[in-house]
């Protein structure tokens, strides 16, 4: 049985802001279903008493925190340099609301 159908793929794609065609949705649904079927193999392992791991090596938090001091990184001009569209020192995007 298919783990995910074309409509679900389209819904997810919309949620992450990716436009896909019907052909793509069909293809991804099939390939993702296969990957999820493989992933179900994980159910063979009893993990009731196991805690999840987020990183292979965990950095000590105390060594990560630093003073909250503002420093100069990039200038406004630099930040806008690679932008597809800009105006008056801002990024410009198409209308957000109708």
């Amino acid at each position, binding site marked *: 049985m298919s783990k995910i159908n074309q409509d679900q793929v389209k819904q997810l794609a919309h949620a992450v*802001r990716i436009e896909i065609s019907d052909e793509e949705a069909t293809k991804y649904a099939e390939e993702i279903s296969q990957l999820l079927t493989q992933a179900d193999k*994980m159910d063979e392992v009893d993990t009731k008493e196991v805690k999840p791991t987020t990183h292979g*090596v965990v950095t000590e938090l105390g060594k990560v925190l630093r003073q909250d001091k503002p420093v100069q990184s990039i200038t406004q001009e630099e930040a806008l340099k690679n932008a*597809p*569209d800009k105006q008056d020192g801002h990024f410009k995007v*198409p209308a957000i609301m109708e």
Partner: protein
Amino acid sequence: MSLFGYTIKELEEKLRKKELSASELVDMSFNRIAEVEDQVQAFITLNEEEAREQAKKYDEQSSDQKKLFALPVGIKDNIVTKGLRTTSASQFLSNFTDPLYDATAVKKLADEQAITIGKLNMDEFAMGSTTETSSYKVTRNPWNTDHVPGGSSGGSAAAVAAGEVLFSLGSDTGGSVRQPAAFSGIVGMKPTYGLVSRYGLIAFAPSLDQIGPMTQGVEDNARVLEIIAGHDQNDSTSANKEVPAYTEALTGDIKGLKIAVPEEYLGDGVDPEVKEAILNALQMFELLGATVDRVSLGHATYAPAAYYMISSAEASTSLARFDGVRFGVRAENTDNMIDMMKKSRGQGFGDEVKKRIILGTFALSADNYENYFEKAQKIRTLIKREFKTVFDNYDVVIGPTTATTAYKIGATDIDPVTANTNDMLTVPANLAGLPALSLPCGFSEAGLPIGLQIIGNHFDESTVYRVAHAYEQATNHHKKRPVLEGENK
């Protein structure tokens, strides 16, 4: 003279004695590119003008040579280079010609006066294992151009194997440095998670990604890692530890070393030719005075499934930054902002990338989180635990880097068991955060390279290099060079 057969140390000496100039060395790199790049297709962008100017400048200054003086390096195209186009092999970034800063690893190379020759091809956003998901070109394996160089750091591997650059940087999320190193007959190291700063590495799966050196030999590899490793305040996951002098660990002495070989790593999915090469290597290690025991890493079988869930879930968030607002290619003729983002991402990303973002989003959604994402993270705990038990009793874990030699270009008939075995060999080191290196240990009958993988304990790169170096010096595999068609022999 060519870039082949010289170590960094030897070139350093020649440069110091003025037997070789920086410009001559850089010329050598571009001459070789002119000679073979048509066949290899390793580069997305060349940095020729800049590189030659830099070399000239270095020749004119008489001050002291730094550690990588004038050495030609290639950089994987997901590592940002100031003012040099960085695409991650995606059309989304095809216009990203002016990155604002150098990745920390690149800056460290530049500070030691290495010269960037160009940006190397890869699978799009590092998602793949053949470099065929690149939206720019198909890179070919220098040993046989009908075959892939591996991936995702395929350009980085092929350029070194073909002698176009002396060394390169790759990145490894699930094997992307080691597998192409194995397929292309070179040395590739994925360091301990946190050893090399990821600042400026375009993230695929941030809890797994590491930048690593790709070189012709083990000594060069250790030398480059010494330079790029170290704490960076711009990467909060980078380790605040002193970097050992890895080159000093290359004593050639591995007497009494305890090697563990997981049964699972020599199972049915592994090609008989590969298995034979590994067994021969294990005999060599015994001759050198090491002991070899079989162990079990039972949960490794589940590593590929866990890896796909974790890496895709992380990718779905990492790649959210590509929205067509601040950089990259924006789709034209769109109605509103959401439409603009959807079209920009839909057109800018390739199939593999879109598929993995959708899979990752599925795995993170409320209904599936527990069964897929969290389950994978729990398997990750078990894998980490298993390695810990092994490293309580052994110095290194050894096995093949890949189940087979390099695939044919365009191969669609890869056996699922083989594909799964390939992932099972490389991804556990990423999940557990361990350092792992691949080096050549033989060739198939068809003349394709075979890679041996050495996995070490956290932050024990020194032992991994010592073991790799001892093996390399006792064998001749690393001295063999690919011969490309029409090449001046």
